[in-house]
């Protein structure tokens, strides 16, 4: 399990850029960033170094930020990598709230998944033969 940085942003000009600049100024290194949005606001989810410090930095800058536990699961970087994982999770009864994926080299990809019971899900996917990344391996 890793800590993901989650930030609430109003859908106004310059907020995403202010967010990224604040993290840059604090020397926080990002490995992945994804945005979910509706008309008025968005939720930005970020994999980065030192997420706890990132929350403090952003709080001070007037952002509403929090950290969230997610699973970062290693899958082979080839067709069917994600599909296999999802089928396994389906069989295990693990319910996914949201997720996003990125590749780290030509052989490996990372599937970041938010599940309702991360503790139990972590154990179940590891028992099924999958490897979980630590934050240090990703940033």
């Amino acid at each position: 399990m890793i800590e993901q940085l989650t930030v609430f942003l109003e859908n106004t000009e310059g907020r995403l850029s202010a967010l990224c600049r604040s993290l840059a100024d604090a020397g926080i290194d990002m490995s992945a960033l994804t945005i979910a949005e509706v008309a008025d606001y968005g939720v930005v989810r970020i994999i980065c170094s030192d997420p706890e410090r990132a929350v403090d930095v952003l709080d001070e800058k007037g952002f509403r930020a929090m950290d969230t536990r997610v699973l970062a699961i290693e899958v082979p970087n080839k067709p069917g990598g994600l599909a296999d994982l999802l089928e396994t999770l389906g069989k295990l009864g693990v319910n996914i709230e949201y997720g996003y994926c990125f590749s780290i080299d030509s052989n490996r990809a990372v599937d970041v998944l938010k599940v309702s019971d991360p503790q139990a899900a972590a154990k179940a996917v590891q028992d099924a033969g999958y490897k979980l990344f630590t934050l240090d391996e990703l940033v």
Partner: protein
Amino acid sequence: MDTQQDILTMPHEQLEALQLEGVKKTVVACYENVAFYRESFDAAGFDPYAVESLDDLSKAPFVTKQDLRDNYPFGMFAVPRSEVKEIHMSSGTTGVATVGGYTDHDLRIWGDCFARGIRFAQGGVDDVCHICYGYGLFTGGLGAHYGSLAAGCTTIPISAGNTERQIRVLREMGSTILCCTPSYAMHIADTAIEMGIDPATEFSLRAGIHGAEPFSNNFRADLERKLNYKVLDVYGLTETMGPGVAIECWEQDGLHLAEDHFFAEIIDPETGERVPDGEWGELVLTSIDREASPVVRYRTRDITRFLPGTCKCGRTHKRIDRLHGRTDDMLIVRGVNVFPSQIEDVMKTFEEASSWYQLELTTKGSLDVVTLKVEVNPGFDFDQMSAIQNLQRQIKAALKTALSVGVEVKVVEPKSIPRSEGKAKRIIDLREGAN
């Protein structure tokens, strides 16, 4: 030092006898010295020389803020200008200002009235009283100032603004009593926390005497936690004196009216008739011993009620409930009457929502559109989009139930609702034809 304990615990019948004497003098002085009252009493057929009981006063006509404005600047004075030693004025943001004049005697009773709040907090010569209401024509600053002097405190007349300096002085001078608006007290607390100072341990506050704007019990609890002190609500208005007309005692169970200086009635704002004790209505005040600017049946537009029973503190002066809005703060939205206090009541039921919210009224086509912007509290788990949507939906439903008006709810980022150094701005009316 005179603690006025005898006056504050006087049997109520005795107090009423004192009130009757005062009211009789006031109506006669107004009739004989103020052209406006002479005309309005005559027009209403009210004989100021025939008042035999406090009930007889209900035959007198009301005086309104507009009447005071119409007689700007000195038309309502009941003494020669040379006896008026100080002038205060309401802000006048909604029209011509109203003027209050004070003789030496009036200034002394004002100080005594405000000092009661400090005495209710067991305050006196051992206290340092930090006053950051604005000084000037606004009655907040000098009213608290005279009260602090009357109670014997060391007075710090720092006025409003320059919050970092306020924080330094509060910390370094060990102020024990804080007088300002509740929203400014919150701003001081939050700014101190941002500066890395914990006001709960690094300040020495015991009591805050906060008024000039309504605040909820949640807001009070927040303040008391952050500043580690006890908050007393103070009520007053420039038109009848300034802060000190009524103040909460240490029981925090209603505000004791200064009944030795004011005779209060609560009326139905529609019919003008007195309502039974315990029922909500508009507060109407008559001066008992004000010399320069006495009022007879001044309609305050403030909604409150008399609290039944006696206070645990043992003082006999009647209590009014904390204000429940103003008759002229009422908004008419798509034909429906909406009181800001109703919105406050709804918002305080949501733990996730902070006390920073604002209602924005706009026009779309010919329809009023109401949008409530709210900042969420730090503990709120918004990681899933649905969490924010659910909160917005729940607030919207609760507002719809309470107000019978549809309100769009938007969660906004921290600090995006403006923090004011004076009154909190809860309502922004951008409707065409508004104001």
